[in-house]
């Protein structure tokens, strides 16, 4: 099976799992007793956070390998992961903000979890601005790799923030008392299907973008060779 066939298969699997996830959210899982249907945002908010953190983890891993091996492939992978991570991180913040309004009575508050997440968003925003504004040189790639490695240090801080500081953000998956806050097994099943759907969506988008960036890098190298060959032919006439 070639890369294109794998991407197509992933696209169809993502679509099927996303439909199943939507069905479970809107028809299968019971709404939480206190928050009502606004709590259903949770089933997409958490998977968005998971894929955003996974993306940023991959940016750091790709950055380490780029600094170690110097292979353009790792830089392209890091760039693709940062871009998809930024999309999912933005959506996670927006979904959380919409959920917060009816439950907390405000769109945003400078709570420890929200603030550390905003810092994370700013750092990867900075990464993408660096990549978009500077030329594609090895130096830009090195700066990007270092920034990606430094920025990922905020991910464990975001995760631990609900335990380290006072916060109004709930610790649902692992509560402060231990165990998890999902009392109904249908809630756990729905969350797992949503996480699987978003993981597939992330892998699919990442593969598409990574393939594009890799192709662009190779085409750039080819264009330079063609320019040299053209000059040689013109000089030989």
């Amino acid at each position, binding site marked *: 099976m070639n890369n294109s066939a794998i991407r197509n298969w992933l696209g169809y699997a993502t679509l099927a799992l996303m439909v199943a996830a939507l069905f479970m959210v809107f028809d299968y899982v019971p709404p939480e007793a206190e928050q*009502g*249907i*606004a709590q*259903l*945002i949770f089933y*997409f*908010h958490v998977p*968005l956070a998971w894929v955003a953190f996974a993306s940023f983890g991959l940016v750091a891993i790709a950055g380490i390998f780029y600094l170690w091996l110097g292979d353009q492939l790792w830089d392209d992978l890091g760039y693709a992961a940062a871009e998809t991570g930024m*999309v999912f991180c*933005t*959506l996670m913040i*927006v*979904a959380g903000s*919409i*959920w917060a*309004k*009816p439950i907390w009575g405000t769109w945003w508050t400078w709570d420890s979890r929200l603030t550390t997440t905003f810092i994370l968003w700013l750092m990867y925003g900075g990464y993408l601005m660096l990549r978009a504004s500077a030329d594609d040189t090895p130096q830009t790639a090195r700066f990007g790799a270092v920034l990606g490695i430094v920025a990922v240090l905020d991910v464990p801080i975001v995760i631990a923030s609900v335990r380290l500081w006072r916060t109004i953000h709930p610790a649902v998956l692992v509560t402060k008392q231990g165990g998890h806050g999902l009392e109904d097994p249908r809630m756990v099943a729905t969350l797992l299907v949503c996480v699987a759907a978003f993981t597939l*969506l992330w892998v699919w*988008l990442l593969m*598409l*973008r990574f393939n*594009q960036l890799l*192709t*662009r890098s190779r*085409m750039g190298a*080819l*264009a330079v060779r*063609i320019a040299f*060959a*053209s000059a040689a*032919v013109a000089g*030989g*006439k």
Partner: protein
Amino acid sequence: MEHLGYLFAAYSIIFGAIFLYVVFIWRRQAALDAELRALEAQMAALKEASTAASVPEHSET
């Protein structure tokens, strides 16, 4: 059905943004395909030029 509007807004924004990102990727792919075709044309022209440049040398020998 209190807060239905918030639920609808959240899911609409999530799927709307993902759709826009897929469109962005699709457009990038179209631009990349156009660049690739231009490179292929350049390569073909280069091959033709190098063949034309080498023909007199071969014909002399």
